[in-house]
């Protein structure tokens, strides 16, 4: 055994002895908690999606996209001919915020942008990924 191997083994034994979880071991309770975290953000996204206050003119995303239909998150990133380049979904969301909603765009990592994308993709669950599709 090399020194390195000895050290590694010692560390493993130490963790086992103190009862710390290994990286790939998590419980059903944890899975449930993470799922709840996700669904909370989905619900925040649904609130924003139906809110007359996201833009400036009282128009809500849901007016044109009930249940986020016709947003096709499974096709992004894709070439958006009107923007002349390949874009991820959040850039298209910002286009909608600026145009039909006459509002301000959101930063890519804005929690509101995360929530909107969580809601859109949740409504599209079960559909296979087809990046680039038109």
């Amino acid at each position, binding site marked *: 055994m090399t020194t390195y191997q000895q050290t590694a083994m010692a560390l493993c034994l130490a963790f086992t002895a103190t009862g710390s979880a290994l990286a790939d071991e998590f419980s059903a309770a944890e899975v449930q908690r993470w799922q709840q975290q996700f669904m909370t953000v989905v619900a925040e996204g649904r609130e924003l999606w139906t809110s007359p206050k996201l833009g400036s003119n*009282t*128009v809500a995303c849901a*007016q*044109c996209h*009930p*249940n986020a239909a*016709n947003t096709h998150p499974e096709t992004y990133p894709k070439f958006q001919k*009107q923007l002349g380049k390949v874009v991820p979904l959040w850039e298209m969301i910002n286009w909608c915020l600026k145009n039909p909603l006459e509002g301000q765009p959101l930063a890519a990592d804005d929690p509101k942008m995360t929530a909107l994308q969580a809601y859109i993709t949740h409504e*599209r*669950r079960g559909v296979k990924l087809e990046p680039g599709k038109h």
Partner: protein
Amino acid sequence: MNSINNSRRNFIKNTGALALGATLPISLVELAFADSSENFTFAYISDAHIQHIKDNRFVRNWDRGLIRAVAETNLLTPKPDFVMFGGDLAQLGSKPELDHGAEILSALHGDVRYVMGEHDYYLDLGEYWQKLFGPQYYSFDHKGVHFVVLNSIKTFDDWTFKRWPTAEQRMLEMAGLDNPNGSPFMVGDEQRLWLKKDLDKIKKDTPVVVFSHSPLQKIYKGWNFWTEDAEQVQALLKPFNKVSVIYGHVHQIQYNQIGNISFNSVMATAWPWPYPQSYAQAEQYLPKLTVPMNRADPFFERDATGWQFINIANGNADLNFTLYDNSSRIVRYNKKLKRPEDAVYQDEKARIIPQTHY
């Protein structure tokens, strides 16, 4: 086909130097007057969703859709016998919205008749709308055709009268198309009783055209592309030889044939809606007969919106869709197969890629 050329010539002559004339897709105005003196036409504008922001501001995009439909309808030659407005003039049923919408529609030449939509109704249960436009359901006769207008967007009394603390909240709950707190549309007992009496007086070979806001057939309940007592209404229409139901609400092209009844939807002037099959979680029943409109391109503000010019040819309805940013469409009654069909795209092989919805 001569009638097309004549229409175009007359149209250009009559509109003269109007810039709009050059872009109006008038070639779709295929009139059948030569075949029968009974044939006539009317225009159909629907789902304007005039939306109040505050003070004197309204959503510009929806305003423009209605203003354009009114302007183009006024340019039609020959003049339509009358104009129908198919409901959802307002977004949240308020006086400013109904007044502003009525003001825009007041520019229409000739008679205009109105259908009630849920966005007009659920604030004050149609009270102000009635002051402006008349009764919520009625019938009239025109050139041998019996027309019936229904208020098909009513719902259970419990939902309407007991569930919501304020009228404003009731309106907001029904205004959200995909709102799980909503409630299914229905014509209801009172109107069905009235309809039965109204139709009892009509000879069974008289063509009957019914205008409703919601489809008098069941397509997708989640978005109220649905009327709860559709089958009961259809049963009242069954004894007649030629029946057409023309409805709004769905903001897309749909058509179907159930027994003796032809169903046609009309376009919205405000914005398009996805077909229900685009919602991955939905159980839906879009009629197999329907060739969908193109998937909307939001970068064209008026894409997948428009209005229509309806030709009552020998008692059947042919719909000519004027689509601002798409090729025009014609859905015409096929006398041999006894059903409405698209004039160009009905055959599977004739369809184009943008008509695929997913």
